[in-house]
């Protein structure tokens, strides 16, 4: 598997930073518990070369991680905790790929007016993960 998407989802789902909020890829299940997290892959960078274009020994993927909660404070609290865990993380991330480096590209800030979707407060986080095949 060339994507770390499922490993990243499992990593977040099991991490204490999410405070038990379930993590979904793409969209949340109907009637899921609140708060919850939805992650979407925004782009991939395969570091292709002319001589070995299929080499997946190092790839980068960028994800948007959106936290939904009843209050803006709760949504940002989880997003901040997730950012704290991910920024500069290196190590296992699922069974197929290993996180070599991770960095936060963007976070929705406190200076922005609280954003609500379907009555729920949301906080966004954009993270890029460089990963290689798990040993």
């Amino acid at each position, binding site marked *: 598997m060339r994507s770390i998407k499922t490993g990243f989802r499992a990593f977040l789902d099991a991490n204490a930073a999410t405070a038990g909020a379930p993590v979904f890829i793409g969209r949340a299940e109907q009637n899921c518990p609140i708060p919850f997290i939805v992650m979407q892959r925004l782009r991939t960078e395969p*570091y*292709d*070369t*002319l*001589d070995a274009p299929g080499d997946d020994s190092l790839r980068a993927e960028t994800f948007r991680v959106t936290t939904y909660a009843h209050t803006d404070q709760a949504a940002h609290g989880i997003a901040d905790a997730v950012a704290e865990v991910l920024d500069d993380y290196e190590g296992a991330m699922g069974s197929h790929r290993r996180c070599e480096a991770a*960095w936060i590209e963007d976070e929705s800030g406190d200076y922005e007016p609280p954003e609500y979707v379907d009555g729920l407060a949301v906080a966004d986080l954009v993270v*890029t993960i460089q990963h290689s095949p798990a040993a």
Partner: protein
Amino acid sequence: MAKVKTRGSLFKLTISASLTTIAQCQEFSTGETKNRTLDVECLDDSSPGVEMMNDGCVTQEEGSATLLFDPDSTNHQFITDSILAGSASFPIAGSYVFADATPASTTFSAVGFGFGATVAVKDVLKANVSVTYAGPLTWPT
């Protein structure tokens, strides 16, 4: 006429007497093979166009390549080892192979290399290579 993809194009140098692909090359540029021309515009020339002439010489610009640098790669080390050996390693024969059906290639004799690593946060380790040729490249005819 055919439109030719670039994936599968190769930058090769002679290492231990055989042409060897320099691995993890992301892009290369051969540099321009050019006729040397002279500006022969005269003060009394009334035409607005600048008059040029060809003096019969052919010049060759440097080539360059971008590698995803692996400091442990022996063929990346070959380039830096050759530089640090001064003139002892040169000339070194090489070629650029294109990804057409033939495949076509252009060959050269290198008399010097340049090499520098680029390290940037949020990126992958890269190196820039320059190639100074002994003369014009040979192109498919």
